[in-house]
């Protein structure tokens, strides 16, 4: 365990966001994960993103399943509402929470075991419903918390710490999400905050289900030679497909882009994602070509990263259920209850 004691005092000149809060206000409890665990870096990226988006901490609900990764909501945004559910069932709890109150920011953190094994069904169905949330998978190819068994994202031929080779094909969360109909599908690496932070911000701002598969190495059980989810391997095989800059509604696009090189996408809240091509032809809005690109590159052993697929034309769960915007818990009982007169009238059909 790494007990990194944080200095108590806030630097007087530490930057403040629109709410007048500093980044310290977005931190959480002390991490109890192994020193060097990729998950801690993802936590850091979440803290920075939520701070930069100026989200009021108590307006955020952070949910997770079970695993080392799923522990992390305790380590960010202390004053938000945490819900550490049971193994693999976070999507359903998030769905119910969202049904009751669509007016909160929802962020879910899960692991590759939590999402792709025990929770695969719930993951897929949350996507089908297009639940309005950001869903982060901290993907290390193993079950960290139960000490290193292969997970469903382990690549063919990847080696366990004791040498055994994985014989089953991996489930790629990104291709799964695309085929289930997700409108925002990204992949990144815990070691690349530059890429990860804009993706988290965009994912949070996206209306509908946004999934980010973050390769997040497990230093204790899956960071050795022969593993395809180690820091080393990931750095070597990392291929950004697109660069995504996130621009807040209040900001202007400042970076200069060459003609035809950048594509700004405006999100429902007025913020923008500016997608920049990195290499070759890549159209993140063409589902079929994205899918086959991912399939080919996986076969080539490449880890394609960035905002892989984007479609902002989908109805999210609340558009379909047509539920009022007001949190259901706040609707007065007099509105909800038809009253005794209605009951007496209704009973005619049973007489």
């Amino acid at each position, binding site marked *: 365990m790494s007990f990194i004691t944080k200095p108590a005092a806030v630097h007087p000149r530490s930057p403040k966001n629109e709410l007048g809060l500093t980044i310290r206000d977005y931190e959480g409890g002390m991490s109890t994960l192994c020193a060097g665990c990729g998950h801690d870096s993802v936590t850091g990226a979440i803290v920075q993103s939520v701070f930069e988006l100026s989200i*009021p*901490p*108590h*307006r955020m*609900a952070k949910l997770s399943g079970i695993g080392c990764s799923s522990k992390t*909501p*305790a380590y960010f945004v*202390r*004053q*938000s*509402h*945490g*819900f*550490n*559910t*049971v193994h693999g*069932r*976070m*999507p*359903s*709890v*998030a*769905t*119910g*929470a*969202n*049904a*009751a*109150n669509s*007016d*909160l920011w929802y962020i879910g953190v899960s692991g590759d075991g939590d999402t792709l094994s025990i929770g695969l*069904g*719930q993951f897929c*169905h949350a996507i089908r*419903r297009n639940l309005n949330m950001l869903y982060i998978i901290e993907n290390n190819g193993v079950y960290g918390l139960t000490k290193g068994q292969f997970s469903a994202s382990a690549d063919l031929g990847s080696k366990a710490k004791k040498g055994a080779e994985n014989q089953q094909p991996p489930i790629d969360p990104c291709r799964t999400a695309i085929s289930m109909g997700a409108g925002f599908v990204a992949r990144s690496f815990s070691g690349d905050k530059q890429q990860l932070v804009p993706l988290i911000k965009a994912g949070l701002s996206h209306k509908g289900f946004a999934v980010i598969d973050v390769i997040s190495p497990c230093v204790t059980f899956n960071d050795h030679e022969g593993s395809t989810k180690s820091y080393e391997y990931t750095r070597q095989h990392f291929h950004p497909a697109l660069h995504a800059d996130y621009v807040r509604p209040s900001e202007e696009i400042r970076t200069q882009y060459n003609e035809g090189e950048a594509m700004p996408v405006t999100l429902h809240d007025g913020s923008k994602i500016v997608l920049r091509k990195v290499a070759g032809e890549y159209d993140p809005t063409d589902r079929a070509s994205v899918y086959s690109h991912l399939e080919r590159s996986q076969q080539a052993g490449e880890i394609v990263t960035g905002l892989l697929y984007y479609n902002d034309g989908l109805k999210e769960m609340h558009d379909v*259920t*047509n*539920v*009022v*915007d007001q*949190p*259901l*818990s*706040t*609707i007065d*009982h007099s*509105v*909800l*209850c*038809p*009253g*005794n007169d*209605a*009951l*007496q009238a*209704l*009973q005619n059909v*049973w*007489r």
Partner: protein
Amino acid sequence: MSTGPRNNDFTIRIANVNGTGSASANTLLMKSFFRMGIPVVGKNYFPSNIQGLPTWYEIRVSGDGYMARAGRVDIMLAMNAETYQKDLADVAPGGYLIYDSTWPRRTLLNREDVTIIGIPLARMCNERFSTARARVLMKNVAYVGAVAALLDIDMEVIAASLDKTFAKKADLLADNHVAIRLGYDYAQANFACPLPYTAQRIDKTSQHIMIDGNTAAALGAVYAGATVGAWYPITPSTSVMDAFASFCQRYRVDEKTGRRNYCIIQAEDELSAMGMVLGAGWNGARAFTPTSGPGISLMSELLGYGYFAEIPAVLINVQRCGPSTGMPTRTQQADILACAFASHGDTRHVLLFPSSPEECFYFGATAFDLAERLQTPVIMLTDLDIGMNDWMVPELNWDDAYRPDRGKVLDAAALDKMKSFHRYLDVDADAIPYRTFPGEHPKGAYFTRGSGHNMYGAYTEDSNEYQEVVDRLRRKWETAKSYVPGPAIWYSDKIRTAIISIGSCDGAVIEARDRLLESGIGINYMRVKAFPFDEQVEQFIEAHDRIYVVEQNRDAQLRSLLILETDTDPAKLLPLLFYDGLPINAQGVIESIRQDQAKGKAKGKAKGKDKGVAA
């Protein structure tokens, strides 16, 4: 029991093939008695199948107002050739069997103590109606007409019922009137009508309705202000959500915007349905899920979460026959223990046991108050008999002064004044902590977890801190006893013998007590309505020497729970068990108790060693 002429006291069973549209004809017949002011019981015995298998509908006409299945058949309407033999065998001596004599069966149907009545229903309908569909459907209506003649049912009542049912379908209405007359006239012309069984107008059904428990439970949820319903279809609970959806469509859509003041989600399975209910409950909405046995098994892990993290949730378990898939369309009360302790660890749940659709409505609302007051899942256990059959119950009434008991919730104003908030602190020494709704106020934030936590809500693996929390949960269980509905008790201090029962056994027990009393056996009665048991339950047990515990499962689950949760001597609790999947009837209870009493007398009031009697 006598087989002589009986007015307003007989049972008709209609044997049919499922998928042939007999349901509305059967309801028509049942409602005719009801509308003549005669109490009536309707029970549907149907297969787990969509078309082509045998199905029976049973109508007990009971001028005395007994609500249980009769356990005998006086008049059999044998409309399914496949089951003629069984149907004939089931008729009580002196009874009647009516069949479709389009295909005469003189040799097959020979029982000397049963009168066979042949009516050429198919032939008459084939001649009268032109489409294949009408011929099949109207056959059902025609037998209602025949029965009306044979039992002297008021034809005006039937005609009015048809007018009401088919008010918006003119051609169907006309056909129905024709078909009724076909059967009626044939019976009048060919048989000595009426039979020794007749329906006579009385006035015992005014201020009553005929309603099934699933509809009533859904209505209770609407009135309680439930806003989120998550579910996965399963017989026999499916119609709870169907009814909730249609009531919401009617009462909960904003007139101006068309937007909904409710959210119904059909989940991918029951695990998910339970997760949704917890998520919504955590966020302050009144949320529920209807399910049945297999669903409870799947929900168990999250039910334990709800208990430990203290999240309000309401489950409606419409019990069916287990184990496993069991008999999905048959009734039982065999989930009592599974629900009481659903999930691993020291988990226990508040249970409600309605005995009729009437209680489904009121408990359906109470369940939400309890769940929020006690911050825990509450499971209402009904069963297929209550849930899917039409029962005659007093008209439902709603107290417009009712306000939901949201329990201990701190709003923004309260939080604003507080120095700090801790989710699991026992501030009021009643073991119920305060909660907040997410997004309400910065000071209201807390972390919800199913892992070990201390009274402040922080993660812990410290033995003492952990134990403090689970001990408080146990104390909260004690607090719960003062909130749950107490038992219904019929007690005379001169009697030392009693029945304890539960849920849908009520009608059979009430009837059995009357019959036993007629033969000089007086028996006290307690019907438990909730778990945890309050102190009256224990007192009642203490006040008796011999107690029959009547329930509908094989393993005496209510009795086990009573033994577990009270200090009673198990030897005085005798199990009376009914678990064949059919609704319980009084006869079984009466016979078992008579036998036991006779045995007791023979033994000279020996006490203590009896194993009880399994019916």
